[in-house]
């Protein structure tokens, strides 16, 4: 091994560029892998901690005696037993287990039998099993199997990502200069065996790993930590976990096992790559290596686009590029992938956010998001007026919309003959326009004031032509409860939630209530027909169905009496002024004395959603940085080796009169070719991706649910251009620096001399 290690060490230190690039490649690939592993581990740890904070036991047994609990302590696999007695006399015993049992349920049954705890395992009321914690803590074989399965999936995913990374390490090793190949050929010609050559390269890889692997692990931990901090700063943790708990449980975790796994994977990877290179090198016969300075040119294209645009410089550049098709393909491929990923991630996240927002918006009719409130039910059908007045007074809301659902229907020939009817809505001014938009997809046919002044309502035909009447007979269905029942109902609604027992009260009271129908002639101020598509999501209403939309003043001025002595509470669509007033409003609404209930909180939902998307965005930004770095290193590597491999060739061009400027020009055209090809492919790939996604949305039926992606085909283009410009800048700088370095020796020297 003495010879091999001598050569490996010499190559590492004398071929600094190659060594450095290889180390950077190993570093980046391993960082990414470690970051992903660490992120995953942190996530599982956090989930475990949150679970433990809420349910700090593997098994909790209720109502054991102190003696029974005490006796459990000595049982197999028991870690800790915590006994708690409550004032009411009931007890709970929290048990934590040690790892390493075969099957948890068998063990548990055995425990019940052995300790005579007085119940069978099927007596569900007597115990709780925290299956998730059992699995997180790898208590039994099943848990370990689950864990292993998850890990395998993750590993496959990471390997998949690493596949693209493999290309980097491989290119660092494989597209290493022809000069290296020549040297290995020379070694062979003076008697180095193929095995020795392979060993030199492998040893070299191993030694570079000594630096690259620890750095990669550190880099991975570092960037995972950074990503963790910045994702946390988006407030995502507090969105899902109570803030106090989040502070305690959401912490960063590093797993030695996962670190070892990345290190070993990285190591094996590098060794495989090195071995592959070694095998490739020894396939070349020594004579070939010694006698052929540069690669053998087999075919050249006579005409090329670059040639047309850039003249002879372009022609040369283009031939150089095609001469090593593999190198060209790998560069363009990795650049294309990086550019496409880089530019599409954000577009996809953006559009997902917009689509999600649209979905929420459809239910609330507000861009900013509203809080959907409901006042407590009351024996006084107009009691809500105070509640709303008070809401207005808080100053937290810029608009408070309202609609009240009444039970009135048109009673005219040809309408509702099948007994089906539309609904009756009493709408206030703030909600008038959004109401039409959200429910019917229409602009209202007249202003709110005009409607109020008319003293009539608007008839909205849901299926069929607008009704051609100026006046219509309406039937009002009223329900009148006894005072006793009203009190009961008020109690039912006092805590907001209605459970099964309470619902029974509600139903029975409804059956006892006196039903009285009233008929009344009402003016029809306007008649419209809805846009068919707006109703798509409700299904098709029966022919002749008509909705009645009336101003709320009509309800308050008398209609309320026709519906009975209690009312459905109105829906209140409260739009908050800003974020600060949102939290104040939330507090206000939560207080029972304000007699208002929060039904649906679109503002909060938007905020949570934004937090999640910010998290996703930050996470993908980190991924993007990795992608960009990797692509850049790859590009620099390929460009510089490409030039160094042709060192003597470039020198001979200079010997026949090519100026330095022309040389620079030629290499810049070469960079341009890489970048432009990659950019074009990226645009195509992105467009295909977008078309694919839209097709996916259509095929899966998501589109019918109202999700329209609406991504412009050329949305990613500016980003691709930006990325390409950066890639071009980097590759140009890399090649100019390499060339300048070369120019330090005279061309004649370079004709023969070596790296």
């Amino acid at each position, binding site marked *: 091994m003495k010879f091999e290690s*001598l*050569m490996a060490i*010499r190559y590492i230190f*004398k071929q600094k560029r190659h060594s450095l690039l290889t180390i950077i490649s190993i570093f980046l690939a391993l960082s990414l892998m470690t970051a992903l592993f660490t992120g995953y581990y942190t996530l599982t740890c956090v989930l475990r901690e949150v679970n433990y904070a809420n349910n700090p036991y593997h098994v909790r047994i209720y109502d054991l005696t102190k003696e029974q609990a005490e006796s459990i302590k000595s049982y197999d696999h028991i870690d800790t037993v915590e006994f708690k007695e409550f004032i009411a006399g009931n007890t709970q015993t929290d048990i934590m287990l040690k790892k390493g049992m075969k099957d948890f349920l068998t063990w548990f049954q055995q425990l019940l039998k052995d300790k005579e705890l007085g119940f069978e395992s099927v007596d569900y009321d007597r115990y709780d099993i925290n299956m998730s914690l059992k699995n997180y803590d790898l208590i039994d074989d099943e848990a370990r199997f689950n864990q292993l399965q998850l890990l395998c999936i993750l590993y496959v995913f990471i390997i998949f990502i690493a596949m693209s990374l493999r290309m980097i390490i491989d290119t660092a090793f494989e597209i290493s200069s022809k000069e290296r190949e020549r040297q290995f050929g*020379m070694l*062979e*010609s*003076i*008697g*180095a065996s193929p095995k020795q050559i392979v060993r030199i390269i492998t040893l070299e890889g191993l030694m570079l790993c000594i630096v690259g692997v620890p750095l990669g692990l550190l880099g991975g931990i570092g960037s995972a930590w950074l990503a963790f901090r910045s994702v946390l700063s988006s407030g995502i943790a507090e969105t899902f976990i109570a803030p106090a708990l989040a502070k305690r449980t959401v912490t960063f975790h590093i797993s030695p096992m996962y670190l070892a796994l990345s290190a070993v994977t990285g190591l094996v990877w590098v060794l495989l790559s090195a071995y592959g290179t070694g095998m490739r090198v020894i396939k070349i016969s020594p004579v070939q290596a010694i006698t052929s300075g540069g690669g053998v040119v087999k075919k050249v294209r006579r005409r090329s686009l670059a040639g047309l645009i850039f003249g002879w410089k372009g022609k040369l550049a283009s031939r150089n590029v095609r001469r090593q098709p593999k190198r060209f393909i790998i560069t363009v491929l990795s650049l294309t992938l990086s550019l496409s990923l880089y530019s599409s991630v954000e577009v996809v996240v953006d559009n997902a956010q917009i689509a999600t927002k649209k979905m929420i918006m459809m239910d609330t009719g507000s861009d900013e998001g509203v809080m959907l409130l409901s006042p407590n039910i009351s024996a006084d059908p107009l009691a809500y007026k105070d509640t709303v007045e008070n809401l207005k007074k808080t100053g937290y809301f810029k608009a408070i919309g309202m609609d009240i659902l009444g039970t009135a229907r048109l009673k005219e020939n040809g309408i509702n003959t099948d007994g089906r009817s539309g609904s009756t809505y009493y709408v206030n001014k703030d909600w008038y326009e959004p109401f039409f938009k959200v429910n019917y997809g229409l602009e209202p046919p007249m202003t709110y004031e005009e409607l109020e002044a008319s003293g009539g309502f608007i008839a909205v035909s849901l299926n069929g032509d607008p009704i051609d009447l100026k006046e219509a007979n309406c039937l009002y269905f009223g329900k009148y409860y006894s005072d006793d029942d009203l009190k009961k109902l008020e109690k039912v609604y006092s805590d907001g939630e209605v459970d099964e027992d309470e619902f029974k009260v509600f139903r029975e009271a409804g059956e006892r209530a006196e039903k009285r129908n009233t008929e009344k002639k009402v003016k029809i101020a306007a008649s419209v027909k809805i846009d068919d598509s707006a109703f798509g999501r409700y299904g098709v209403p029966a022919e002749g169905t008509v909705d009645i939309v009336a101003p709320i003043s009509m309800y308050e001025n008398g209609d309320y009496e026709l519906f009975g002595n209690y009312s459905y509470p109105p829906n209140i669509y409260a739009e908050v002024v800003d974020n600060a007033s949102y939290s104040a409003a939330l507090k206000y609404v939560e207080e029972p004395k304000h007699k208002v209930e929060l039904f649906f909180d679109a503002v909060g939902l938007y905020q949570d959603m934004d937090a999640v998307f910010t998290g996703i965005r930050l996470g993908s930004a980190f991924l993007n940085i990795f992608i960009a770095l990797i692509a850049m290193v790859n590009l620099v590597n390929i460009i510089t080796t490409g030039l160094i491999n042709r060192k003597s060739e470039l020198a001979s061009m200079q010997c026949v009169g090519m100026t330095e400027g022309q040389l620079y020009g030629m290499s810049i055209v070469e960079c341009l070719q890489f970048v432009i090809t990659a950019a074009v492919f990226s645009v195509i790939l992105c467009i295909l991706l977008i078309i694919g996604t839209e097709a996916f949305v259509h095929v899966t039926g998501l589109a019918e649910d109202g999700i329209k992606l609406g991504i412009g085909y050329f949305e990613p283009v500016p980003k691709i251009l930006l990325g390409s410009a950066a890639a071009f800048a980097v590759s140009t700088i890399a090649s100019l620096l390499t060339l300048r370095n070369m120019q330090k020796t005279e061309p004649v020297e370079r004709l023969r001399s070596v790296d």
Partner: protein
Amino acid sequence: MELLKIEDLCKTYGKGENEVKALDKVSFTVPKGQMLAVIGPSGSGKSTLLHIIGGVDRPTSGKVWLDGQDVYEQNNKNLAIFRRRQVGLIYQFYNLIPVLSAEENITLPMIMDGRKPDKERLEKLLKLLDLTERRDHLPSQLSGGQQQRVSIGRAMFTSPGVILADEPTGNLDSKNSAEIMELLRNSNRDFNQTMIIITHDENIALQCDRIITVSDGHIVNDVLTGIN
């Protein structure tokens, strides 16, 4: 007794239209201690012949025996060991390992073999090659003549059965050429070292014991100079 025996050696490059017969049924023998010059026009197959004798290229057909051993009957590993122990190659452009110092380049075949280089022999050789002062220099820090002396040192260090030199002076001026030739001549005389030297230079050829002329892959002339 013959050290090297070459029998019906053929080497063709390429296929079909592009086929080139670099060597066509070449046969000759070389006794131990002989210093043989191979001359001939450019492209006549001299280098090909040398590479095949040296075990770095495989013949299309024919055989090479060195010291009674059929060179190309060996597997790759043994062929490598054969190159490292039995052959010393010297090239026109030196082909030194650029990352190793002069001394390391010289001892390389020995180190490769897992043997400890003989210190005394090394010192003697360095002195003989006039490289004692330059032993720690990298090839890039040496002149052409010095580099060629290093490569001769490398070829001689393991005392191989045969030293093969492909235009060893082709890249050197006449003073340096004379020095290199003297080195080779002396080692041939002092150690009874068998040598095959390819050259363009008639003066150099005339310093050898025997001259073979190659043309178009055939041996067209084979004469003893009568020096010894």
